[in-house]
């Protein structure tokens, strides 16, 4: 068997993907069930000239990756719910200051310190709305170990392209389960680096508002002068109270993501052409959904599957098209929480389509049988 086939844990796949994607800085604070990511990167980063720092807490961790990214290093942190709660302030700062960063949240049961060793998807809404202020989050949710690797690379790419924090949302089961993985060959995955300025230093504006809303980014130390603040700022980064500049900045922050939904949003669908019922599930639950859909089809039931891979932002137009599938009567939304993304589905389905929530929050996975039973109830 080829050398590149391995039995790999989900958390290992985050570290592997990070190394492939060109990570050079990790600042973090260990927390179950994410700790393996930090452990592995602590060993691997120094070998490529990267830096690993264990910070004093999660607030400092997110601050450290913002600082490191401003010097030009691709930067990441990894945590779980309680740590993510502390990080949301810094994530808002990274968004406002347009600093590429990747935050991995290996979800466990909440609220508060909750269930350190148990699976959950209850940070789905926090990943979207955690920080204050109007904010467009990019959040990716893998379903397998290999996809965890791929989406770690993709999270880094998106952060670099859109100069924004990107959250990779996994969970305890995915983080700890081991699965057969083919490690991608060198060059197999696209690696994107941030666009650097090509203008003289005196012309450079760190937050320039360009026609495509993408502004090249100099690093501290490159010889370009710029100011970084969380206060609403002008194109050079200095705080402003001028309504024209405020409007321009906040509109840019929104447009630089919302104008590129086709690039950012990945949604997988299967069997929707003739489906009467669709199962909508993301992350690890999508595996149970897939199994249940197979079982249902074996019983000649017309059931389709919808799997958001990019769970935020929502590509409303694409979802409306999917939910308009001509025979569709009901959508079952399966989540390991008390109902979070279900509201997004309710918002986007045609009036005649029923939305049914299937929730589990007792620390166990939703089983294929549970989903199949729900499908039978609908029919």
């Amino acid at each position, binding site marked *: 068997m080829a050398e590149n086939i391995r*039995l790999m844990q989900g958390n290992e796949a985050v570290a592997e993907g990070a190394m492939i994607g060109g990570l050079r800085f990790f600042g973090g604070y260990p927390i179950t069930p994410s700790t393996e990511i930090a452990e592995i990167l602590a060993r691997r980063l120094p070998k490529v000239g990267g830096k690993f720092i264990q910070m004093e807490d999660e607030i400092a961790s997110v601050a450290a990756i913002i600082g490191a990214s401003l010097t030009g290093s691709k930067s990441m942190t990894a945590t779980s719910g309680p740590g993510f709660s502390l990080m949301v302030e810094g994530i808002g700062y990274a968004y406002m200051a347009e600093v590429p960063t990747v935050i991995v949240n290996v979800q466990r049961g909440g609220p508060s310190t909750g269930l350190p060793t148990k699976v959950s998807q209850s940070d789905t809404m926090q990943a979207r709305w955690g920080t204050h202020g109007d904010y467009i989050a990019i959040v990716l949710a893998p379903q397998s170990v290999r996809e965890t690797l791929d989406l770690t690379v993709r999270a880094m790419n998106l952060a670099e392209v859109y100069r924004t924090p990107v959250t990779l949302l996994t969970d305890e*089961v995915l983080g700890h389960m081991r699965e057969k993985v083919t490690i991608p060959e060198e060059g197999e995955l696209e690696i994107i680096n941030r666009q650097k300025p090509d203008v003289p230093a005196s012309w450079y504006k760190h937050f320039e508002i360009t026609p495509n809303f993408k502004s090249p980014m100099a690093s501290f130390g490159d010889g370009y002068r710029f100011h970084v603040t969380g206060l609403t700022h002008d194109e050079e980064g200095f705080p402003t109270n001028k309504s024209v500049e405020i409007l321009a900045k906040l509109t840019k922050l929104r447009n630089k993501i919302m104008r590129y939904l086709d690039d950012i949003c990945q949604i997988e669908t299967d069997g929707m052409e003739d489906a009467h019922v669709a199962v909508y599930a993301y992350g690890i639950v999508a595996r149970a959904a897939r199994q249940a859909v197979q079982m249902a089809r074996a019983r000649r039931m017309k059931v389709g599957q919808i799997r958001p891979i990019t769970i935020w932002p929502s590509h409303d137009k694409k979802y409306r098209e999917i939910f308009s599938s001509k025979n569709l009567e009901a959508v079952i939304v399966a989540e390991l929480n008390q109902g979070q993304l279900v509201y997004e589905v309710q918002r986007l389905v045609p009036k005649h389509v029923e939305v049914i929530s299937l929730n589990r929050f007792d620390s166990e996975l939703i089983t294929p049988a549970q989903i199949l039973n729900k499908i039978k109830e609908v029919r």
Partner: protein
Amino acid sequence: MSMTSHPKPDKTGASHTDSESIDRYEIRLSGSGGQGLILAGVMLAEAVATVDGKNCVQTQSYGPEARGGASRADVVISSGEIYYPKPMQLDLLLALSQEACDNYYRDLKENGLLIVDSHLVTQVPTTRWIGIPFSQLARHEIGNTMVANVISLGAICAISGVVSEAGLIEVVKRRAPRGTEEKNLAALQLGLTEGKKAKDRIRS
């Protein structure tokens, strides 16, 4: 690297009559914390994934249970894609403690294969089971109770055929702590022999 061919799980263990679980084989290794069952699960999965070349997912019960109480590792094997990563109905349950046997027997499918440590599990809830005194064999034949997990892997290989002997040998070599390779390989061989004997007992 050569692919070792090995028989499909036979009727002793796996019933592949259920249309929903064709080509899906689910194993649970269970017992008490400290018996090395998680490591055994990882070794089994690694042999299947990296040597036999099949798809494989290994999950574990993780938490307070891992500290002395019941402990378990689950392995799902398929030559096709594995959707749901955890067992739905076990094809094979290994129980190295009475508590594990009591807790997980109900997860075994009808005609599923129950393998117990015949010294530690005295109350077996069915007439269809295979008993091998793994812990006693480890102590008396190998001289180390820690290798009961590897003996049981050998037995699972011989009885179910779901993992190849070559795969287990390679992974035991790879994973055994330095200096214990020989003991672990001897334990694996012992498990294979005991497994074959147990299987012959069923046939006759």
